[in-house]
């Protein structure tokens, strides 16, 4: 089967019910997307499917066929609307030194980008609601919120 990842068509020979996460990580080598729980509980595996954030650990690879998969590695090369936000998010993340261990941050950045694509100027409640599916054990939540606000400001 053929999958489109970060704008490139790639050939895959895996069962259709394999979660997209493992096809990306183990078969195709996109290791920026992380495994955290395997049950859509932590958000570390968040990627975009046609510019919508999904949890790749519970999304069968077959349901991604014919759609555009974007991972953290390719988030800045997608549609202009997404790329612009993603760059602002990554810049804010770096500037505020958001990551500690960093393992959850690919997923956090994907979710934050999705949030800002939808809401250019999110409230604290918007941020809490949208980001509460992403767990961070290092406790970077306060900075994530600040970085989203910072990115939002830089975009307006």
């Amino acid at each position, binding site marked *: 089967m053929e999958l489109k990842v970060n704008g490139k068509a790639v050939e895959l020979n895996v069962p259709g019910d394999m979660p997209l996460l*493992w096809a990306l990580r183990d078969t195709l080598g996109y290791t920026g997307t992380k495994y955290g729980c395997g049950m859509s509980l932590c958000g570390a595996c968040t990627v975009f499917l046609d510019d919508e954030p999904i949890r790749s650990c519970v999304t069968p690879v077959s349901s991604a066929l014919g759609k555009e998969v974007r991972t953290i590695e390719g988030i800045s090369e997608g549609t202009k609307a997404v790329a612009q936000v993603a760059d602002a998010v990554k810049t804010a993340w770096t500037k505020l030194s958001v*990551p500690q261990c960093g393992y959850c941050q690919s997923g956090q950045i994907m979710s934050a980008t999705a949030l800002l694509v939808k809401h250019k100027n999110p409230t604290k409640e918007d941020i809490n609601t949208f980001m509460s*599916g992403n767990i961070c054990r*290092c406790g970077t*939540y306060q900075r994530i919120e600040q970085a989203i606000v910072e990115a939002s400001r830089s975009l307006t």
Partner: protein
Amino acid sequence: MSNETEFKNEFNRRDFLRTTGLTTAGLILSFYIPMGGRKEAFAQTATPGVAPKPNAFIEIKPDNSIVITINHLEMGQGINTSMSQLIAEELECDWKNIRAVSAPVDAIYNGRMGMQMTGGSSSLITGYDQYRQLGATMREMLVSAAAKRWGLATSECRAENGFVVSSKGRLSYGELASEAGQLPVPTQVTLKNPKDFKVIGQPMTRVDAMEKSTGKAIYGLDVRLPKMQFVVIQRPPLPNIKLLSFDESAARKISGVSDVIRFGDSVAVLAKDTWTARRGRDSLNPKYDLQGHDKMTNETLREDFKKSLTSDPGVVVDKRGDVTAAFAKAKNTIEATYEFPYLAHATMEPMNCTIDFDGDKAELWSGHQMPTMDQGAVAQVLGIAKEKVQIHTVYAGGSFGRRGSKTCDYVVEAAQLAKIVKKPLQIVWTREDDMRGGFYRPMNVHQAHLAFDEKNHFVGWKHQIAGQSVVANSPLEKFIVKDGIESVVVEGVAQTAYSIPNFLVDCRRPNPNMTTLWWRSVGHSHTAFVTETVIDEIAHQTKKDALHLRQEMLKASPRHLAVLALLAKKSPWGKPAPKGHAYGLAIHESFKSVVGHVVEVSLNQKEIKVHHVWSAVDCGQVVNPDGARAQIEGAVVYGLSAALYGEMVIKNGQVTTSNFNDYPVLRMAEMPKVDVFFVDTHSPPTGLGEPGLPATAPAVANALFKLTGKRLRRLPLSRGLA
């Protein structure tokens, strides 16, 4: 401080060696600090024209880039940044040119306990002088090289932002590197006076922020080797449990499974991807002999721990005054029992190890927190010399103690399997494996008896601990258990800074079939809860303000007093809380630092909400204020997750807790605002990764007492409200 500092401790010997080598990357200036008995090996590496061994601390490349080798694991605490700051401060280099890399295993990188390790919040304690001296030494050599080229005295030259500058112009470090390498290494260097610091004490952006914000950072699970097989393992549910049978054929039927291997009481399933290996593992239908273990539950464990308080006299670990006499004369007494559950570390990146053993030599990739021990353990399993085991330390997706495995458990397991398979393997723990992996913050039960005299003065405190050993049956036991006293069980209540007229602490260590390990702040994770809620209880009983009582009882501890004063100044303590909210206070010393929190808490039905945390911290000289704040923010979150929700559930002798659905942790919507304030001091740095945690839970419990009038003494706190 400052001034002439001699290289005094064992890894700061005078006999620096250095080499210059011509490699494909160009000229490299490297430092070597040999340990006793290793000089021959270093003489070989000093051969001109031969590339230096990768055991340098600093390299300056011709393009002026600077590679700093960090002898600790970067697991989120920001050590690659703060230790780079130590060198940058003295080296006078351009921060933008710095890159930090993790050290391989070599005795020159040893620290505590005679090995390379990261733990006990000790990295900046052991590295503060060493890394500054390295930077200063290199700077002086570069200045000397420039002075020589210009024919000037060194006093006529100065180092400035990556250049040596004089009346004759300026030369970059990259241009000077090879000449500097020919010069003798100074045996004494002058370290800066802290008032002249330009980098230390500045909020530097993390050196790893960019790669961790772009998906480029490589963690253990991201290592990819040619022909590597992914492995998921079926392990016994707890130690000492035998595997009776399993269905090998079911796993082999799954397309993509390449092998099924029993080793010991574990079964490994190998496949071309993690998902297939996991499906294979999940089809094994293993049967275990649980006899003798199958009755164990949280309740039986708690009861056994409680019983041991009376059945086992234990060991006295702190004794002041005469507690028996104090109780004999007491007018009032309070008796309180505290219960702490087993806790998992639940790092975001589950445990893993990638290994390539070809029958002769081995390479490993993981977030190695104790690489020296890992190397030795793997060599032993494989039956090869430890020099043939190459350890690659990559970023760790959190640790909180778990990767400092006292038995090197997941690394040993990888080696056992690699010895059989001899192919590149990545052993992946699923989240469920990680939760049920059997290494937990131990269960502890404390009992406190408090005595008050006829004037209602607090006069005595008898304290009993039943806590499972953290280090038993590991090579580290000899470093930590002295005269039957295990410091990491009793630390924080034994030798408390509080002035207590009559005080007795004893401890016994029940030994159920659970495997334990350090967990962020170790013993302090429970002792601080007891100590700080007891002090609150004394304040309530004696009708004193909780902050004033602490000031009275900590008169002899200036650092505690400074932290309390800072808290009083920066927090709203003493002011009325918003309606339905209450403030709670706690302070605790751990890992040589003192941290106090004031928390603002509300209670909606059974839902505990922490709105705001004000933290005051004395951790000595703050190297990176922004990173230091992050450590306190993180410790508060980690502490709150445990305080509000953390509990491993044990049924029928097995841990049933499996994932973030039944081991909830704090999420974004629950995040309080955290404001962190540091005591202004230039004393050498003390611990920071752990000290923010201990005072968190008791501060919340003290606030909840104000809201409910109820003392919650069982963790997690949500249980006590149920």
